[in-house]
C-alpha cells in the first residue's frame, strides 16, 4: 500500500519542489523574467482585449436587438446569382409598389408592414419654412405604422391615417432636429412647410432615436421627414421608386415563420414572374439573421486577434526558450551539484520545465492584467456604453492560460532536456 501510494506522492512532491525552486529562481531574476515574458504578455493582452471588447459589443448588440428590433424583417430586391434573371440589372429588378398589395392579409404572422421609399436621386431634399431652408433632409415615403416599425413613435400630433395614404395627402412628420432647424415652434402641428414645390402640413413630430436603435432600423439621427407613400409617388412622379419594405412579426418566435410567409407571398407577386424552382429576386431578412451575420464578423475579428496572439506567443515562446537556455548554461554548476547529491534526470527536467511553465503563466497573468486595463481604458476613453460593458470572459482566461502552458512546455522542453542530459562531472567543472 505504501509503495502504491508512493508513486503519485513522489510525483506531486517533485512538482511541488520544482515549483518552489522555479519561483525562487524567477524571483531572483525579476527584471530578466519580466522582459522575457514580453511576447507572452503582448499575445495574451491582445487576444483578451479584443475578445473582451467583442463580448461587450455582443452583449450590448443583443440587448439592443431585444429592445429595438427583434421582430423587424427587411424585404429588399436582389439579383439572383443563378437562374435566368442573374443577368438582369439590379435597377431593373426593383420593386413595384403594387407587388406588396395584400401582404397583411396573406401573411398571418405579421402585425405591421410598410413600404419605405428612402431619399433617392429624384427626391427633393430641401425643406423650407418661411424664409428658412434646410438642405439635406431625408424625405422618406412610408405606409401606415412605419413609425412604429422603425422605432420613431409620434411624440406630438397624430400618426398617418388611412386616408392620408390612399388620397395621397400632403401631410408629414418631421423630427425634432428638423423642426428646430426650421425655427418652428415646439408645437408645430398644423404648420406648413414647402418641399419640392408642394405645401405639406405637419401632423406629427417624431423623436430622434438612440444610436443603438438606429443600428437595427437605420436612420433616426435627425433631419428626417416622413410623408405618406402615395404622396411620395405623387411628389416624385416616379411610379417605381427605389424602395424596400419593412415588416414586424407578431412575436420574436414567429419571426422565422413570418419570413417564410413573406417569401412565399413575394414569389407570387414579383414582376417579372418567377418560374417554379427559379431563385428569388428578393431577400427577406429577419434581425435574427443580422445577428448571425454580426456573430460571423465578430468571429472573424476574434480569429484575426487570435492570429496576432498566436504569433506573439510563438515569438514569446522562442524568447522563453532562449532565456531558459541561458539559464541552463549559467546554472551548469548548480545542475552538476544537484545531480551529484542525488537529483535524478526527471527531477532536473521537471525543475526546468516547471520554471519555463511558470514564466509563461506569469506572462499570461501580466497579459491578462494588461488586457483588463486596456479594456477599461478603451471603455473609458471611447465613452461608449457598448465598450464599457466589455469584460474578459472566463473561457478566455482559461484558454489564455492553456496556451501559455502549451508554450511553456513546448519551448521549455529543449532547455530542460539539455539540463537533464548534463554530465555531473563536466557540469561541476564548468566555469
Amino acid at each position, binding site marked *: 500500500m505504501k509503495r502504491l501510494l508512493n508513486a503519485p506522492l513522489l510525483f506531486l512532491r517533485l512538482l511541488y*519542489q520544482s515549483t518552489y525552486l522555479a519561483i*525562487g529562481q524567477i524571483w531572483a531574476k525579476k527584471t530578466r523574467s519580466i522582459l522575457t515574458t514580453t511576447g507572452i504578455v503582448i499575445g495574451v493582452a491582445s487576444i483578451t482585449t479584443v475578445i473582451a471588447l467583442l463580448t461587450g459589443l455582443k452583449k450590448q448588440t443583443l440587448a439592443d436587438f431585444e429592445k429595438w428590433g427583434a421582430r423587424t424583417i427587411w424585404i429588399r430586391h436582389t439579383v439572383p446569382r443563378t437562374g435566368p434573371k442573374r443577368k438582369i440589372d439590379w435597377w431593373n429588378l426593383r420593386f413595384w409598389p403594387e407587388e406588396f398589395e395584400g401582404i397583411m392579409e396573406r401573411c398571418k404572422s405579421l402585425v405591421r408592414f410598410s413600404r419605405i421609399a428612402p431619399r433617392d436621386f429624384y427626391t427633393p431634399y430641401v425643406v423650407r419654412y418661411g424664409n428658412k431652408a434646410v438642405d439635406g433632409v431625408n424625405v422618406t415615403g412610408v405606409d401606415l405604422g412605419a413609425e412604429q416599425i422603425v422605432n420613431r413613435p409620434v411624440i406630438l400630433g397624430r400618426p398617418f391615417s388611412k386616408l392620408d395614404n390612399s388620397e395621397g395627402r400632403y401631410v408629414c412628420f418631421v423630427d425634432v432636429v428638423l423642426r428646430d432647424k426650421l425655427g418652428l415652434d415646439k408645437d408645430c402641428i398644423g404648420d406648413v412647410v414647402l418641399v419640392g414645390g408642394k405645401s405639406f402640413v405637419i401632423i406629427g413630430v417624431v423623436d430622434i432615436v438612440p444610436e443603438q436603435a438606429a443600428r437595427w432600423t437605420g436612420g433616426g439621427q435627425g433631419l428626417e421627414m416622413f410623408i405618406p407613400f402615395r404622396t411620395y409617388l405623387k411628389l416624385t412622379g416616379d411610379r417605381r421608386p427605389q424602395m424596400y419594405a419593412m415588416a414586424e412579426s407578431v412575436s420574436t418566435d414567429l419571426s422565422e415563420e413570418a419570413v417564410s410567409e413573406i417569401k412565399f407571398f413575394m414569389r407570387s407577386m414579383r414582376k417579372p414572374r418567377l418560374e417554379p424552382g427559379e431563385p428569388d429576386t428578393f431577400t427577406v431578412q429577419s434581425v435574427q439573421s443580422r445577428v448571425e451575420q454580426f456573430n460571423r464578423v465578430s468571429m472573424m475579428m476574434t480569429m484575426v486577434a487570435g492570429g496576432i496572439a498566436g504569433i506573439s506567443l510563438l515569438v514569446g515562446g522562442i524568447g522563453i526558450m532562449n532565456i531558459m537556455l541561458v539559464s541552463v548554461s549559467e546554472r551548469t554548476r548548480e545542475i552538476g551539484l544537484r545531480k*551529484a547529491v542525488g537529483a535524478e534526470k526527471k527531477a532536473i527536467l521537471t525543475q526546468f520545465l516547471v520554471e519555463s511553465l511558470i514564466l509563461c503563466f506569469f506572462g499570461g497573468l501580466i497579459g491578462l492584467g494588461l488586457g483588463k486595463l486596456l479594456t477599461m481604458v478603451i471603455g473609458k476613453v471611447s465613452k461608449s456604453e457598448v465598450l464599457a460593458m466589455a469584460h474578459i470572459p472566463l473561457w478566455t482566461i482559461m484558454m489564455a492560460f492553456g496556451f501559455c502552458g502549451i508554450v511553456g512546455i513546448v519551448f521549455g522542453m529543449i532547455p530542460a532536456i539539455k539540463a537533464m542530459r548534463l554530465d555531473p*562531472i563536466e557540469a561541476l567543472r564548468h566555469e
Partner: protein
Amino acid sequence: MKQRASDNNGVIIQLRGVKRVYEVGVDEIHALDGVDIEIRENEYLAVMGHSGSGKSTLMNVLGCLDRPTEGSYEYGGEDVTEMEDAELARIRNERIGFVFQSFELLPQMSAIKNVEIPLLYSRFGWLGRGAKAKKSLQRVGLEGRMTHRPNQLSGGEKQRVAIARALVCEPSVLLADEPTGNLDSKTTKSIMELFDQLHQQGQTIIIVTHEGDVAGHAKRIIRMKDGKIYSDMPAERDKAANASSGAVPEEVQA
C-alpha cells in the same frame, strides 16, 4: 542504510580491477588502470597523487558519478557497475556525501536551504527536512549561521555548510575532493579537525588531496600515479616509507 553497508564484514566499498578509459580522438587515456581497493566501515582514508594521477577519476567512480569501463565496483554488496542512472542517483543521494573544493553552495539560498538540497531528492528525507538540516548544521558548529547566505559566510564556514549538506542524509561514506584547496592554513586546520571529529563519531571518510598535511589526518593513505595505486598502507607506515624515499615520492619513482 548503515547496516546494509556493513553486511559484508564491514566492507562498504570494493573495487576490483577497475579501469576507466577515455577516448580522446584516436587516443585512449587510461585514467584508471586496474585499481583494487577495499574500504571498510569507519575508515579514514586519504587518496593522494598529483594532477593527472587518476585520483579525480577514482573519486568520480567512488562517488558513483562515473562508471568504470572495466572491472567491478560493489557498494555495500551491490554491484554499482550494472546500475541504471536513477539507481546511481539514489546511491549518491542516500549513501554518499560529497564535499567539493569550491563548496558548490547555491548563492541565492541560505545556509539551511543549501543543506536541505539533498533531502529534496531523497525518498525518506523530505518530511522534516528543516529539522534534519538544522541538526546537520549543529554537527558542524554552524547553528548560529543558518539563515546566512553563502556570500555572508567565510570560506571555512562555507565548507562547513557544504559538509553539513554532505552529512544531512546520513551517508555511509563522506567523500571529500580537495576539501581545503580553497582555504587558508588556519581554516584548513579547523576543517580537518572537524573531519577528525566526524571520524571519531563513526563516519567513514575518504579525502582526495595532494596536500601532505591534510592527508596526515587520515588513518590510511593511498597514493596514485598514472591511474595505478602504488602505495596503500596505514598512515604511520606511509609516513615512514615516504620519509625514507623523500618528501616527494612521485618524483623519485619517476
